[in-house]
């Protein structure tokens, strides 16, 4: 399992594009928003939690189709399926690798971009915490979506149509936690629910993902 994780990470870093691209996309979306809504600091700091969450969600979406597509094309997914490692484990590792290459950098970069959007100073801690708790769920749900569309030639658009509705609860709780933090309210409830979603997806979705992969490899 660890070997697979290291292989995926190395591929993501060396194969160009994937690793930095999500981060750059995140940056660009956040920079574009003030052009769209105007530069008033008050407005920006009010919508900052939502913008940061939606942007990180889109950035995570961007790299989803790479999770299985390359392995499917060159046949290594079939090798993984016949290896002693269960498919559930493969799904879990793939999601973890995706999180390390997109979710984690996004979480680290988010406070800097929050600064650009003049996020309220009290909210930084909760922004970090909510992204740290929430982005693994995004990766896991995304891995499920990627497994669903792995056999399709142009699955990218379909993938976003399938995955985005599934992201709704994560987004609601994540953005709500940051907003409550910014307003000086208690965000623990939202954070706990967010953690609950992440734990739930990691417990259950590997099975669904593995089932879907087996169907697609039939």
């Amino acid at each position, binding site marked *: 399992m660890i070997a697979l994780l290291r292989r995926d990470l190395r591929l993501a870093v060396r194969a160009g594009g994937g690793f930095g691209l999500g981060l750059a996309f995140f940056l660009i979306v956040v920079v574009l928003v003030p052009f769209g809504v105007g530069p008033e600091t008050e407005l920006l700091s009010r919508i900052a939690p939502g913008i940061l969450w939606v942007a990180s969600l889109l950035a995570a979406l961007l790299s989803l189709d790479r999770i299985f597509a390359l392995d499917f094309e060159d046949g290594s997914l079939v090798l993984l399926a016949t290896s002693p490692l269960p498919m559930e484990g493969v799904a879990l590792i793939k999601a973890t690798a995706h999180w390390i290459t997109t979710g984690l950098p996004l979480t680290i970069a988010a406070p800097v971009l929050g600064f650009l959007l003049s996020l309220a100073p009290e909210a930084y801690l909760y922004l970090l915490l909510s992204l740290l708790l929430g982005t693994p769920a995004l990766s896991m749900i995304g891995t499920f979506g990627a497994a669903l569309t792995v056999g399709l030639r142009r699955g990218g658009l379909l993938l976003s149509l399938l995955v985005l509705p599934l992201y709704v*609860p994560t987004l609601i709780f994540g953005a*709500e936690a940051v907003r409550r933090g910014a307003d000086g309210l208690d965000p623990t409830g939202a954070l706990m629910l967010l953690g609950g979603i992440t734990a739930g997806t990691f417990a259950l979705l590997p099975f669904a993902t593995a089932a879907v992969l087996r169907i697609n490899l039939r």
Partner: protein
Amino acid sequence: MSIWEYANPTKFMGWTAPVMRAAFWLAALCLAVGLIWGFFFTPDDFRQGSTVKIIYLHVPAALMAINAWIMMLAASLIWVVRRHHVSALAARAAAPVGLVMTLIALFTGGIWGQPMWGTYWAWDPRLTSFLILFLFYLGYIALWEAIEDPDTAADLTSVLCMVGSVFAILSRYAVNFWNQGLHQGASLSLDKEENVADVFWIPLLVCIAGFVLLFIALVLMRTRTEIRARRMRALQARAQRA
């Protein structure tokens, strides 16, 4: 003789033809009676005026939008467990009907909301969860359309339906957390003292029965079409091989 024998495509085609016809006529009858009764022979509500009459479309459509998804979930489970092809086709057939029901509920709600709440749309939990349900239907239908092999498509969509159901319920309660409601609470529960007054309640029941029958008829019709399409494809494949 078990109930599963009726899932044999030939038998299914046999018994659904009269059932479908009967369901269509009964639905037409119920809807005609319920809507005319509701629109012309019930008094105006004392606060809402005549706008209240849109519930004869809104409530049954919303009910069927949710029930269609539950039916799809049941059909998907049957497909996964017992692999009856008709079951998968029925799930596929129900999706567009459910999608249209969701749209009807959203639109009639908007038309009612304009004079009552002063807005066609508000980010109210119920409204929002219906919009999310609409997106789920879209994704489900799109996945069916995208995959060529029918068995793979049936497998993948049924997994999506199951996972989607969990997330739909999750979203339903998540949006409560995010915004307080504008929509009134349930007015048709069986266990409550205070329900809609009988004058509105009986035509509403007739309308709900009409929508249920209409849904059954439409799903049967679409399932029969799917079965015929599948037979046609099999015949074509055989002709090509010969």
